[in-house]
């Protein structure tokens, strides 16, 4: 029996090395671009990243995002952005990019000691 895991969600699927995972390189791919999808859950909240999808153009990306990510009124507004247009910081959390804010504890209110008797502070 191949090694099988229950973690196929809807049930057991084989997980051994006989199951290939690497994508084949093709000469020409006419695949639709990948869009990242952001949904505003309700008025007053920020748009939040919910996932991605493929679509031929911006308009169909919005339609597909509605069908895929708001089947139960999960949103009042959708943004779609082509994934290639997103610039991201380096993934490392210890990145020097964030270092400048690391030693500036005086930016937090708890840095300052105020006597207990002073109201509304």
């Amino acid at each position, binding site marked *: 029996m191949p090694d099988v*895991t*229950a973690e196929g969600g809807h049930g057991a699927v084989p997980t051994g090395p006989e199951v290939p995972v690497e994508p084949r390189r093709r000469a020409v791919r006419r695949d639709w671009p990948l869009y990242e999808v952001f949904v505003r859950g309700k008025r007053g909240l920020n748009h939040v990243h919910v*996932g991605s999808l493929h679509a*031929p*153009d*911006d308009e169909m990306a919005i339609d597909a995002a509605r069908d895929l990510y708001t089947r139960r009124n999960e949103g009042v507004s959708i943004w779609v952005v082509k994934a290639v247009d997103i610039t991201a910081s380096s*993934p490392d959390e210890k990145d*020097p*990019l964030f270092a400048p804010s690391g030693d500036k504890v005086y930016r937090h209110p708890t840095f300052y000691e105020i006597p207990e008797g002073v109201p509304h502070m």
Partner: protein
Amino acid sequence: MSAPTLERPAPDETALQRQFDATIAADHRIEPRDWMPEGYRRTLIRQVAQHAHSEIVGMQPEGDWLLAAPSLRRKSVLLAKVQDEAGHGLYLYSAAETLGADRADLTDKLIEGKQKYSSIFNYPTLTYADVGVIGWLVDGAAICNQVPLCRSSYGPYARAMIRVCKEESFHQRQGYELLMTMMRGTPEQRAMVQDAVDRWWWPSLMMFGPPDDASPNSAQSMAWGIKRHTNDELRQRYVDMSVPQAQALGVTLPDPDLTWDEASGHWRTGPIDWDEFTRVISGSGPMNAVRIARRRAARDDNAWVTEAATAYAEKHGA
């Protein structure tokens, strides 16, 4: 003072491995652009892709009853459920792509039989009662599997699972309600429900995979936090939940050895026929060929729509 720069020498592999291990040990999440061991990435792609395939192929057994639903209400519910399965598949393909997989390529691998889907969908839906039993038992088992995956160590997979689990509850409840309605009906309708339970009970127990002593790779997946409970633990949890539901419904589970074990506080089942499981997962189930042929037709027969949309987008300069 020089500005922070994004160009740094690549840290060596052992330091990266240490950082990965520390993230897992702290029960924090691994995110797409983090360094991860090759085995972790490959195992996850396999798992997430085949989970996605299961959702997509899972549309078929119930989809067979869409045009034969007994009322508009039942048809609307079933349509919503089948739509959800498509959605679940797409959330998961989206997660697989964050690991470097290619969605169209994963579909090709499914159609070529290189990647699999859950063995449960290789059984036919013979009557409308099967729709109810799939919701109750099959989706019930899926919930048991999927709830712990909401804490998977891989962020995008865990987030997809949270979304899926929210929707899965509707699936199980609509199935159970359908069965309750039939059980209040004619003797023939009650017999249909019992017949469907007789056919689906054992395959649903097999959904959790082979017993723990026959699952050699489980330990690694547990250590990586992409598997949270063993096959047997999940199966036991499922049996304990299902038996009282069967009693409330008024059906008999087809297992003469099913007994309540007072000492442990668990229901104990008779032996599972793992030979049947092996036959079905390796392609000899009643519906394997049909499921794949349909998926292939969906890809090939609809290719012109994809091409037309691409041509339109190009013409309008998207």
